[in-house]
């Protein structure tokens, strides 16, 4: 299974998760895990998603997420999971 980690960081506001999840659903991205906290007033979310059946490329999704982030006023990044696995798991 090919997985990506999506991180969303920014000022907390209503509907961030809803908008990001709707976006992902439209592109056939399956969410496997979500964790979210507020760190000193800042919204901080991480999702692990399955991208096996996505309808466009990772680069396109990353671009569109970036655009969506700008609309909501948060920073959204989509990265392949391996980078985190390599760094934190032996």
């Amino acid at each position: 299974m090919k997985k990506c980690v999506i991180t969303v960081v920014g000022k907390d506001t209503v509907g961030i998760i809803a908008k990001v999840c709707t976006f992902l659903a439209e592109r056939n991205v399956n969410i496997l895990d979500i964790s979210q906290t507020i760190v000193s007033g800042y919204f901080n979310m991480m999702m692990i998603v399955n991208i096996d059946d996505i309808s466009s490329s990772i680069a396109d999704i990353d671009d569109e997420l970036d655009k969506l982030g700008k609309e909501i006023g948060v920073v959204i990044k989509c990265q392949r999971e391996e980078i985190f696995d390599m760094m934190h798991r032996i």
Partner: protein
Amino acid sequence: MINISEVNETNNMVEKENLDVRTITMGINLLSCADSDLKVTCDNIYNKITSLAKNLVSTGEEIAREFGVPIVNKRISLTPIALVGSACCKTPDDYVEICKTLDKAAHEVGVNFIGGYSAIVSKGMTKSDELLIRSIPKAMASTELICSSINVGSTKTGINMDAVKLMGEMVKETAEATKDQDSIGCAKLVVLCNAPDDNPFMAGAFHGVSESDAIINVGVSGPGVVKYALESVKGEDFEVLCETIKKTAFKITRVGQLVAQEASKRLGIPFGIIDLSLAPTPAIGDSVADILELIGLEKAGAPGTTAALALLNDQVKKGGIMASSYVGGLSGAFIPVSEDQGMINAVNAGSLTIEKLEAMTCVCSVGLDMIAIPGDTKATTISGIIADESAIGMINQKTTAVRVIPVIGKSVGDTVEFGGLLGYAPIMPVNSFDCSAFVNRGGRIPAPIHSFKN
């Protein structure tokens, strides 16, 4: 499964602490390009580089984007050109033609630098080695993206003092030939002892004859990450300090390993090595000198600097070695002056001298690197500096190097600006006592006793 704090830690390293992969370097064997005709040789070289490396830059950018880690440089290292051109080059100008071909290929594929305008003369110089060496000033002046390196000694062979003498003159002539640009030609020219065959870092990268046809080597970096980690262990003892550096080096290297494997897979070229070097940049916070200061020194160069650097270098290797399947290249902390804001500050404050830097080169990778010296420094004095560094490398069985820039028209008190990753540097004073009788003796320094292991 990965948790949010681990994800944040990785992303903070990239966003706030300057974590990056410094270079993906593709090593290319050019021996198959040699021909007795210069034009044919140049065409063969151009075609081989532009076909093998045509996707290098775009692949690097793709990987950087998918994994969210910057890959700063994409580079190429080549078989030492003195070998490739030996059948067709009859004059130094013939070698300059090859160098121009390399520059054209570098621009075509979009890489930052090509290394390998090199000769390995640790024991003796062939006629073609000498022609290449004599072509360096003109070659560096008439190209933009080509780096030259000459290996003048090794633990197994001793030091070729004829080559050392000649290189002092060539450094000086290269400075003259590029004096309109603050002698920048010398920033692309390095003289080495015990040069590794698989170094991905410039200016000393070349694709040694022990390597396969093409290979991917990756240089990691991350002084900023180590610095940030050490900020949380101020006042702790050496055990805690060393453990912190080791763990950080492990994490940094794992990123390099992933990028190397991915680049190798996508380009269809085998993975060679990871070079575990802490390579500073002029960016604030991305400095090896800053790490030394966090270890407990007021300024880099203060008493204790050599010990602190030795410790740092060793822990980086210990942490990094387990993180990668193959480690090679230079693998250690770099201490270039112009590329490290902390080092520049230390020189300006009067804390760091060339002599102290020379001591530091005994315990870390490479040597006197990116040091601007007065333009009127004699060629024999530069040869003397090269001989000293080579001796350190030869006796300690390590790589050492000299990349000094005698900036024509400038003297102590002036500053020189190279721009980009090469940074800027205050001109440092050089011991002005004469060593020409030593340098002019001719011949070679025999291999040291501990090289006779058979």
